[in-house]
């Protein structure tokens, strides 16, 4: 199995120090990502879902080393990305690209979209002038734009078209893994469907793997093969899509699933969570979810549950599962 793992994340942590006062005294850490382990196989879409502030974007950025990890390993085909030097890291970035949430903020307004798409080719010194122009035209057609639009600036495009440009740019250097950070959450529903279909098509055509980050479980359910649920910097549950949606074991996953509005309301009792996601600066002791949990046990506030494999490929971090009390 090892050889099929494109990305293997082991106990990854990203803490942001918090300082206060005149001497910038260190008063604590925001544990944005706090010991996360998972892997992404080749040609696989791993969905990562969680509420705002749970650390899902930081996790995506830390994997690409856009943020320096505090500790832990990110293995790409066995090489630890966290330990690479600048030059090796640049080589490796050919394999991994990112699509960002807000296409307005992620495209340079002063560059033509053609130049934006071409930039990765220039940085990695791929092809000559003519080949690059051809490649840009080819990419634009692949994502459903017209090659003639390469000379236009981002403001001439709609939100959906800008996101297509972002996708073309990520595809430019034939990566194997794309980290998609909320790629459709800024788009209208009719446009969202176009972009999701496009991302599915290119995933199949180029055999890509995605780490697909989203807060919308309906979108995750549509896209992913396996799903990881994150809460306050940790993975609460990870399983294959059918398993997670049919047999959620973590109470948080259960509540999330029941909260999603649907055009076909289930008539099932809704589990209403109370309160907000706590601050990652001062998370509750024990299981971070226990103050909001509807199935809380006395041990939940004392001991933090470990992520354990309950059945083949189904991982849960919950005391209910250690106790065998499901």
């Amino acid at each position, binding site marked *: 199995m090892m050889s099929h793992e494109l990305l293997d994340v082991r106990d990854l942590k990203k803490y942001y120090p918090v300082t206060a006062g005149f001497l910038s005294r260190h008063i604590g850490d925001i544990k944005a990502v706090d010991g996360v382990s998972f892997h992404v196989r080749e040609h696989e879409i791993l969905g990562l879902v969680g*509420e*705002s502030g749970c650390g899902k974007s930081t996790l995506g950025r830390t994997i690409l080393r856009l943020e320096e990890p505090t500790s832990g390993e990110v293995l790409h085909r066995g090489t630890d990305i966290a330990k690479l030097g600048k030059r090796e890291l640049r080589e490796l970035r050919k394999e991994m690209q990112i699509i960002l949430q807000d296409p307005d903020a992620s495209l340079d307004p002063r560059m033509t979209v053609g130049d934006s798409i071409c930039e990765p080719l220039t940085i990695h010194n791929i092809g000559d002038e003519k080949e690059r122009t051809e490649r840009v035209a080819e990419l634009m057609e692949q994502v459903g734009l017209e090659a003639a639009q390469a000379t236009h600036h981002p403001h001439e495009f*709609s939100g*959906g*078209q800008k996101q297509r440009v972002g996708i073309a740019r990520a595809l430019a250097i034939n990566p194997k893994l794309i980290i998609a950070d909320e790629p459709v959450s800024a788009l*209208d*529903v*009719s*446009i*969202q*469907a*176009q972009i*999701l*279909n496009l991302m*599915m098509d290119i995933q199949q055509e180029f055999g890509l793997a995605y780490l697909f980050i989203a*807060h*919308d*479980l*309906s*979108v995750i*359910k*549509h896209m992913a093969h396996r799903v990881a649920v994150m809460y306050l910097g940790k993975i609460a549950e990870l399983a294959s899509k059918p398993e997670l*949606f049919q047999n959620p074991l973590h109470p948080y996953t259960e*509540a*999330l*699933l*029941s*909260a*999603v*509005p*649907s*055009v*076909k*309301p*289930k008539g099932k009792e*809704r589990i*209403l*969570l*109370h*309160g*907000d*996601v706590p601050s990652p600066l001062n998370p509750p002791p024990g299981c971070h979810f226990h103050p909001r949990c509807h199935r809380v046990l006395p041990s939940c506030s004392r001991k933090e549950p470990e992520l354990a494999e309950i059945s083949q490929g189904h991982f849960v971090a919950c005391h209910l599962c250690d106790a065998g009390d499901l």
Partner: protein
Amino acid sequence: MNAMSNVILKITNLKTHFFTRRGVVKAVDGVDFELRRGECLCLVGESGCGKTVTALSILGLIDSPPGRIVDGEVRYDNLDLVKCSARQLRQIRGKEIAMVFQEAQSALNPVLTVGDQIIEQMKIHLPMEHREARNRALSLLEEMGVPSVERVMSSYPHQLSGGMKQRALIAMSLTCDPQILIADEPTTAVDVTIKAQILDIFRDLKAKRQMSLVFITHDLAVVAEIGDRAVVIYGGKNIESAPVSEIIGSPKHPYTAGLIGCLPDISQTTDRLASIPGNTPSPIDLPQGCSFHPRCSKVMEVCSQREPAQIAISQEHQVSCHLNQ
């Protein structure tokens, strides 16, 4: 009881245009609907379709210039709100018809505490002592399910989470016990677990206070959860209105059907989403004829030539599409 007396707000052929240097933006260009007592009516559409401008027009909150209500009627309680004076409108706004604005962060004043903002509203409309107003604010926040109300009252907006701000805004809109509440995308910027909490609050308002709600959203799944009837708006016009179960179960307009098809849904699995090609049209340059025709999968010759008239499929179901003529 006959159906008419049950109508609390009736909007007829509302047109709100903005006169800009680049041309006339027809943000709302012929919207009709009626709100019945105690129901939740959803206005559904994508960004730029005119749903927020419709709400602002009802309350007389369109900036003029550049905007102006060029035609139509907003009938509330024997008054045509379009023709009311600014003074009359001030009496109605907030007191009879209240609004929960989009984006709680920018709708709240950042330099006043939440408590002060709620109390301010009450003092404008009601003869109330400060203490009485304060107690009412506290009980409203409690009704919204706010824990530690005293703390929230004395907090500034930036100290509160998104869900908490949204609750404070809803509490604020309820201070004068309005007849009608217009909520503009109240669940859009919040997380799914908070969204479920907010939807519950609106359900309660309807059940316990018999409030008449106009709920503006782009999310058909939310409509299915909360709405009684829905009006689908495209290019500044309502193209279909019907009870929610009919809108979702048997949509008649290709745009409505497209919107439902392109929604990934948690309760079913599809390999590929249906999608609507192209982009939403700009209200400054709406297509000729039916404004949806360039994106429509069932387009006919007549669609680009003539605007479809609104026809009634049944008493409760109206649609504007040549397919049904």
